[in-house]
């Protein structure tokens, strides 16, 4: 059981970081960014290129992933989502645009980075072995888990105490009121999207050391991120974090406890999620009014 809990906590930390960027973009612009997973994949490939191919330090690779995706996110918001949100009152317009961007990024990833699974050398060797394999955790996972928690904490502090963070929270709470108070919606929307995409890039860069990266990871990553956001409550940062840890723990427990019944873990998770959403559609921490 100790191992199951350790696996769940690690998965939860990485999932929470994935969900944060998605929920931020949703909170600011009401956009369901279906391309979030593809942005995560690009982040992984950038770190792979910088760290494994060029041979620069790992941290440079992660920073390059964050910077690259921040630029991609800003451009996507300025030239794609921004104009569509201004011109169209229909929410499905942004959803279709996001799906289109996801397909486009998949094609770009295939062209730039190829079809193969990629991995990087371990950043830390060795395994933490407690009480003769009662709990086993490779040191690189512990480090990545710690970095993920650190990144989550930094993000919360930034959103809580910086001027930009306060402006974005104001936008998320009430766009019209924020505008009346002098918040530049377009400017902070670009920053918000860039920040959300940057988080996807950073987590892609961090996790390439553990899971590797390949072209096909984008779609499934987006689906998991949406699940976490649904569990925690769309557009609520603390909800995304809670959703990440809950999903990680459910996955870890299910894969061990239900293993003898076959691959039914996600069946159980999805069924539970349906029941949960029927009772509480706004998620754990979301507000019923939006």
């Amino acid at each position, binding site marked *: 059981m100790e191992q199951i809990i350790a*696996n769940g906590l690690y998965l939860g930390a990485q999932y929470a970081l994935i969900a944060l960027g998605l929920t931020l973009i949703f909170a600011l612009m009401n956009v369901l960014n279906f391309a979030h997973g593809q942005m995560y994949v690009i982040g992984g490939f950038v770190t792979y290129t910088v760290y494994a191919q060029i041979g620069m330090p790992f941290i440079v690779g992660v920073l390059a992933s964050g910077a690259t995706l921040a630029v991609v996110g800003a451009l996507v918001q300025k030239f794609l989502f921004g104009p569509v949100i201004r011109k169209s009152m229909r929410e499905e317009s942004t959803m279709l645009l996001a799906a289109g961007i996801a397909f486009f990024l998949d094609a770009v990833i295939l062209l730039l980075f190829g079809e193969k*699974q990629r991995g*990087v050398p371990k950043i830390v060797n060795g395994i933490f072995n407690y009480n003769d394999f009662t709990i086993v955790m490779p040191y690189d996972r512990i480090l990545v888990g710690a970095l993920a928690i650190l990144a989550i904490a930094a993000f919360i502090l930034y959103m809580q105490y910086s001027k930009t963070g306060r402006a974005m929270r104001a936008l998320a709470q009430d766009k019209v009121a924020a505008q009346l108070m002098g918040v530049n919606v377009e400017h902070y929307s670009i920053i918000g999207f860039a920040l959300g995409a940057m988080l996807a890039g950073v987590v892609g860069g961090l996790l390439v050391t553990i899971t590797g990266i390949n*072209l096909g990871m984008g779609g*499934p990553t987006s689906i998991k991120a949406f699940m976490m956001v649904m569990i925690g409550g769309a557009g609520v940062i603390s909800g995304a974090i809670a959703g990440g840890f809950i999903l990680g723990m459910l996955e870890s427990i299910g894969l061990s406890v239900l293993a003898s019944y076959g691959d039914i873990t996600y069946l159980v998770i999805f069924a539970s999620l349906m029941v949960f959403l029927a009772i509480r559609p706004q998620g754990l921490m979301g507000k019923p009014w939006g």
Partner: protein
Amino acid sequence: MLNRRVFMRTVFVAGIAVVAGMAAPQQAAAANEKLRIGFVGVTSGPAAAWGISNVRSMQTRAAWINATGGVKIGEKTYDVDIVTFDDQKDPKRAIAGMEKMAQEKIHYVVGPNVDDGAAAVRPVAEQNNIIYFPYAFPKSLYVKPASNAVLGMVANYQSGPAIYKYLKDKKGVKKIAFVCANESDPLSQRDGGVEAAKALGLEIVSSNVTYQVDTTDFTPVLTPVVSKKPDLLVLSGVAPANAPQLIRAARELGYKGLMSAETAQDANVLKEGAGDLANGFISVGGASTPEIASDTMKEFVARYTKMFGEYNDESNTKVYALEYILETLKTNPKAINDVAEFKKTMDTFSAPNPYMKGDAKLKYVGMTSFGQKRQVAVPMVVNEYKNGKFATLFIAEVD
């Protein structure tokens, strides 16, 4: 005005001359008639690696043939033209792809890459006289009354028993566990493996653990399997993208036994994803290990690498289908538009295997498994991964 007209005429004539000049060498190069060979398989999305190694193998070989004057079939010399269709691993798209091949009067197609796609295209292929070379294992595709599908590789129910027996005899394996993705190909491969292991008298300690195809962290998946302490952990039907993560997770959980797969893997992917933890991993390969690769195989690898930047070890097996099609057509040129002639030739066909050292032959096999010759004889090379490379563990043949 006159000057302008003269200028325009000069530009026009010069333009015609440039276009004609550019076209002339192409016309010379295009003097050969085109022999179009199709590919229907997955080249995008999560499983893109399966089909891309197929397509690139075909394109590399076709470019090589065309650069050296084409392929002579009967009295005519042809340039090989590869017509591709991405089925996105969707059976409905695979049917559309095969219908496209039929509309374009293509009679020989490589693919699809997976079981359901290969089964879905069967009616289209049979109705439109198309011989196709799937990388799918269901026996119903190859036993009578089916006759248009030719298995392009060694099936797991052929390689699995050989690997388990070798490991039982040489490494003392007694307890075996299976883990696979929860989709049709890996599940059927796992079931075949379980049967083969039972037949050999091995104790199966775990066989019902599966994982979602999109799993990226395999530690929770393997935790219950590793606790059973098998001597051999079989990764049934494992995709090259997942193999390194599974190996790494198992080793990091303290697993000390052997690991194997009956699918082709890529040494560089294993090296990047699992490093030294992959040492000793056993998989089925093709013909590029140093012990058996001919100079032609080495040149193929070099040309592939030059054309696409990086070689894929899966192509060691996938280089063969196009070769079989062309060599069979060379043996019986009437088959070029008549698949009945092709089928007739398959029973007696034999040609030197250019990719292997020694006197290995290209021939159709499958009598034991399918009751008719509906499989290409690719060498069943069982490899062991060691320090970034595959080494040949043993070589066997399918009859």
